[in-house]
């Protein structure tokens, strides 16, 4: 049974916006335990709410506009305090999708968000070097979060 979902998202034609997309793509190429599922997608949509609700642990990877280029941040999302940040047709935030998951499917996993601050968000199909270089660090963070939570989830450690 899949217990951990890693989702990296971003527009692969908008420069560093695609950081999460490429980081998750890299993860897919690694040997992962069967309880870890990885997705790399263009953007979060309501259809992902149902899937998210089925997992125990969710790790999201995204790009961030603010901060120094290449700056990596890791945070635990407080799912007890989610606000409706608007679910307009083209503007679904992580928070709004999590809220949908709880409202419609009645449960939510523990959610961690890993971000890297981008440099270029204009039309481009590649990452800036100082942003791309953080992909291994992000992968290490993903493994670290999973291992930290293994006792809660009843899972073996990833080496």
């Amino acid at each position, binding site marked *: 049974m899949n217990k951990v979902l890693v989702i990296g998202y971003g*527009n692969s034609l*908008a420069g560093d916006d695609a950081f999460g997309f490429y980081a998750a793509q890299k993860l897919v190429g690694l040997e992962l335990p069967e309880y870890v599922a990885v997705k790399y997608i*263009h953007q979060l949509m*309501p*259809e992902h*709410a*149902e899937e998210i609700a089925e997992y125990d642990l969710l790790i999201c990877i995204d790009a961030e506009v603010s901060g120094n280029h290449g700056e990596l941040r890791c945070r635990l999302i407080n799912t007890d305090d989610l606000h*409706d940040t*608007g*679910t*307009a*047709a*083209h*503007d*679904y935030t992580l928070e*709004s999708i999590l*809220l*949908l998951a709880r*409202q*419609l499917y009645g449960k939510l996993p523990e959610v961690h968000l890993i971000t890297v601050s981008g440099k270029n*968000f204009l*039309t481009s199909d590649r990452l800036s070097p100082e942003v791309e270089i953080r992909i291994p660090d992000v992968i290490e963070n993903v493994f670290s979060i999973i291992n930290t939570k293994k006792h809660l989830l009843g899972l073996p450690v990833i080496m």
Partner: protein
Amino acid sequence: MSRTITIDPVTRIEGHSKITIHLDDEGKVNDARFHVTQFRGFEKFCEGRPFYEMPSLMARTCGICPVSHLVAGAKACDDILAVRLPDAAIMLRKIMNLSQIIQSHALSFFYLSSPDILLGLDSPVQDRNLGGIVKANPELAKNGILLRKFGQKIIELLGGKRIHPSWVIAGGVSTKLTEEQRKTMLGWIPEALKAIQWTLDTVKPLLENFREEMRTFGNFPSLFMGLVNENNELEHYSGKLRIVDSVGNIIADKLDPQKYFEYIEEKVEPWTFMKFPYYKPLGPDQGSYRVGPLARLNIIDRCGTPLADQEWAEFRDLERGAVLSSFHYHFARLIEILYGIEKIKMLLDDEKILSTHFRAYAEPNNFEGVGVSEAPRGTLIHHYKINEQGLITWANMIIATGHNNQAMNKGILQAAKHFIKHDKLTEGMTNRVEAVIRCYDPCLSCSTHAVGKMPMKIQLVNSCNEIIDELIKN
């Protein structure tokens, strides 16, 4: 003193546009225009590319309906190759095209338009979204998500990814269907059928609350055009074009889609990037037609699947002759979702679909090819010309939303005349004008969006260009 009201951008549609409403000296609406403010350069920058790249290349026009462009583009390439496709290839393409229609209709109805229907056109603007639906009727939101996911999952299963799959190629499809894939898709059918039947039962009574909108949301005589199959049933992939008038009379039948240029002409207006196609024999005004779900259900003799036929009978009872109100695009969309699910099951139940013969091979045999299919929003035409090296020298696309351009303009004029009567704007008034556009679900190539925020500014401007009233929505 004449004035202009500008609604910019129009919200909850696919792409960028604005509406201007022109008032006369007495403050009455005398004109309204739907402006498409984005530009699609695909026909130009594909020149010089190998023709077999076209299906995937042109699919990039849109992130919502890429499969429709993929299918029409592949059909144009089939025409260049002059091949006869294996049955399995046609059936598999039909399934993918129907899945595209289902997921797109689900997005249009549940995510974009159902807030107006469930919560009302005067409800607070911050509630008119999927979040508002979740609070008011979570089951409706769940079914919307389920149906969109149903279409997307099939596209992903067949094409490898949900957006911009490249599995439909010149001559057929790139891989065969496995028995396991077939079983998986058949396993999804019952839940999807249940969801759309529940939705129809829930939504139909709600539509009765919109009598005024039915009368004024693009309710006017026009022609209707779309594909029908050899039994004059609903058809989204092949068949011939049929045109009916507002009374329901067939005025042109069995038109060869590949000769569209003999009976469809396009006129240009300086204030929009979108052209105005019309039925050539009747001229720009009388020849104005509508396409899409409403048109498709107006031109057929029956749907051709049992449950959809029952709903279609109710649809045709809405009006004598053709159903004219564009408000009924919503109902038509739901019927097409039902039809699509039933039809996909019928196609999957046919053993021929598992054939290992799923692609025809040939070198180019024609210097020109036309592909026509039904996209979610209506008839889609791709037309390519190549040189002796097989490189594209010319391309033309008439997108479904383009066919509806004249009707959308007429529709907003009608709604504006009915609902906008004062110097002072209210959100409910302008939302009604926007809601007319949402009936048509125009797709203005939203895949070009870089950022999702779409603030909307509505200005009331006098003849001296002075702003006399303004509403801003974020």
